């Protein structure tokens, strides 16, 4: 472990070699030296190191240590998803790497290589064009964080989790770990032990944030684990759209990304949470995401999973108040050697609650896409509705898709609907498109884009363009 010093001076000795560029926009890295490094492997000392670097209050350190115990005591959930999880060696991962804890307010202050990274990913440009605020996380900590003055003047708080704990403990502590308890699953426990970064957002009552807030999560180091922790609270009648993007370079060894995201929508609030992840094919992406919707509140997850080696992610909504609404819209693309195990959890806990799940997956080559969903409506409730639709598209004859919907409905005053379909891009369809002058690859891309089009239209413009670009890149070389 590196020594903890008071200085947060940043000095990079990077000669900025750009390693291993390919078509994937995220596949590049700069060599870095880190001022803070928790070393390799996980122990009580690692947890203490992280807590000390962050100068945390004793209750948080205790929370982390308890979470570590929970993590160590829980088995891997390999019995139901994939044996691939067993290949993760937790003793070979680096749990905390940063060049300092204080994010910069202007891009000019951000260290050159980190700035260059985010410029290549187009973040500052997007910020200028259409965002209300941006947080850019580089490995364990945010390198940049800024919110437009007009938005902060309305009382909106948008900081990283370290800053949130330090500056707003009264709000943070009240909601933290309440939607997703430490012991929810092995990876939520791991995150609770070593979390760093992620966003803390509070929107005051009645405030409607007109432009999205965005976080970008960038993994740069090899053998690294990124464990951001996001907590978003929308107070009564407020509205927020939050977007996150993620990339990492391609390494020969596995990288772990294990986030926990908790959303709380108080009475009448609306939260829309959009993810476009484009992980490289060595990343284990094991994320727990859940929202709590109070009376007449709405939570909508738009989840777009491209890349990674294994993604296990099932965004959920606990519909706690009357007339609350929950929605999950997900698009997953599993390429050769990838497994997208994604889905949704809709837990109805009040009368007249409504949930909708629309999932579209594409399996390319030997890629595997799995839909795994839970819809739970208990006996004592009335007037609950769920509509689930799962569509799978298989590109090659050896592609694989599975659907595991678990629907528990008790009582007789509910309406539940489940639809599933599997389709293929036919040779005749490809010929038709080629006959119009498109190459086989372009034809395949267009078919896949058409398959997700109806969902992509719900994305903000910039993200649907990005999605189309990512699909085109993924589909390149997938035919022939």
């Amino acid at each position: 472990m590196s020594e903890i010093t008071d200085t947060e001076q940043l000095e990079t000795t990077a000669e900025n070699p750009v390693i291993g560029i390919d078509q994937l926009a995220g596949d590049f890295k700069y060599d870095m030296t880190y001022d803070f490094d928790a070393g390799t492997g996980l122990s009580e000392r690692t947890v203490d190191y992280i807590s000390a670097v962050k100068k945390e209050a004793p209750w948080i350190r205790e929370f982390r240590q308890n979470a570590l115990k929970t993590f160590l005591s829980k088995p891997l959930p390999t019995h139901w998803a994939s044996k691939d999880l067993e290949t993760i060696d937790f003793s070979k991962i680096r749990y905390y790497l940063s060049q300092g804890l204080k994010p910069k307010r202007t891009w000019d202050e951000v260290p050159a290589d980190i700035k260059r990274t985010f410029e290549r990913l187009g973040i500052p440009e997007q910020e200028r064009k259409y965002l209300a605020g941006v947080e850019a996380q580089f490995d364990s900590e945010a390198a940049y964080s800024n919110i437009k003055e007009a938005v902060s003047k309305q009382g909106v708080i948008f900081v990283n989790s370290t800053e949130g704990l330090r500056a707003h403990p009264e709000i943070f502590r009240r909601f933290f770990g309440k939607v997703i308890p430490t012991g929810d699953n092995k990876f939520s426990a791991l995150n609770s032990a070593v979390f760093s970064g992620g966003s803390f957002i509070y929107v005051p009552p009645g405030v409607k944030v007109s432009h999205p807030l965005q976080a970008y999560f960038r993994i740069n180091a090899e053998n690294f684990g990124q464990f951001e922790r996001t907590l978003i609270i929308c107070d009564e009648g407020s509205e927020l759209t939050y977007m996150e993007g993620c990339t990492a370079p391609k390494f020969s060894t596995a990288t772990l990304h294990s986030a926990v995201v908790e959303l709380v929508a108080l009475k009448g609030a609306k939260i829309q949470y959009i993810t476009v992840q484009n992980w490289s094919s060595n990343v284990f992406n094991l994320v727990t995401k859940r929202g709590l919707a109070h009376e007449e509140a709405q939570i909508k997850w738009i989840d777009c999973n491209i890349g990674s080696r294994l993604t296990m992610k099932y965004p959920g909504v606990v519909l706690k108040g009357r007339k609350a609404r929950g929605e999950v819209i997900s698009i997953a693309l599993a390429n050769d050697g990838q497994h997208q195990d994604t889905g949704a959890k809709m837990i109805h806990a009040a009368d007249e609650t409504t949930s909708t799940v629309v999932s579209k997956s594409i399996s390319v080559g030997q890629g595997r896409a799995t839909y795994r969903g839970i819809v739970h409506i208990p006996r004592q409730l009335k007037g609950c509705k769920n509509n689930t639709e799962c569509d799978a598209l298989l590109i090659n004859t050896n592609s694989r898709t599975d659907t595991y919907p678990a629907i528990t409905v008790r009582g007789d005053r509910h309406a539940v609907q489940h639809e599933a379909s599997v389709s293929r891009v036919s040779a005749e369809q490809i010929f038709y498109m080629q006959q119009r002058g498109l190459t086989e690859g372009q034809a395949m891309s267009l078919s896949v884009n058409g398959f997700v089009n109806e969902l992509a239209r719900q994305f903000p413009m910039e993200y649907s363009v990005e999605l189309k670009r990512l699909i085109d890149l993924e589909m390149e070389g997938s035919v022939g």
Partner: protein
Amino acid sequence: MSSLEIKNLHVSTGDKEIVKGVTLAINTGEIHAVMGPNGAGKSTMAKAIAGHPDYTITQGDVLLDGKSILEMESDERARAGIFLAFQYPSEIPGVSIANFLRAAIQARMSEGEEIDASGFYKRLYQKMDLLKIERTFTSRAVNEGFSGGEKKRTEILQMAMLEPRFALMDETDSGLDIDALRVVADGVNSLRGPSLGILLITHYQRLLGYIVPDFVHVMIDGCIVKSGDKTLALELESRGYDWVKKEFANA
């Protein structure tokens, strides 16, 4: 002027030979009708020329302006100016007609060149007006849930937008009622001109009452057995195909 020459063309699917030595030359500005009973090999010939992977050309050649196209992929042939109007056009779910056409036109442009969106829509709407197609049509997914007539009109719209040198129209009249037939025929007639050659495949004379061909060929059992002008079509309509078969057998 461009030419499309089909020389002693033999086409098989699986082990079965369907087209057994067809020779035919089309110049731009001409309309050639190929008539014949079901199973004569008319559609197979058109698909093979367009490069359909299910059909193998075992002998002969197809030349575009004197150069063989057989080594070209189907998309290269399309970009070189060969258009197949399908008998059964495929559905492309989620892809609007406008986006599909944009992609097809973009595919014809050189790298780095971007399609001019406003110019594209202006031209698209002109062609749609010409074909009496409603503006809202272009936002519908290609052929998805279309009636027979709508599918065929979509084919003609694509043909109008992509401006091929040679159009192979495979049973464009099949499945159309008389009104739809008239609309499609009007569309084709409006595209007719010195820069377009058409191979019109049909087994009814009916269509030829609306699209008057310059030449008529009769295809039976994989061979062209008789060629003539538009009067041949009328003769076939009144006398059927049997006399042509006999004449051919006796020759």
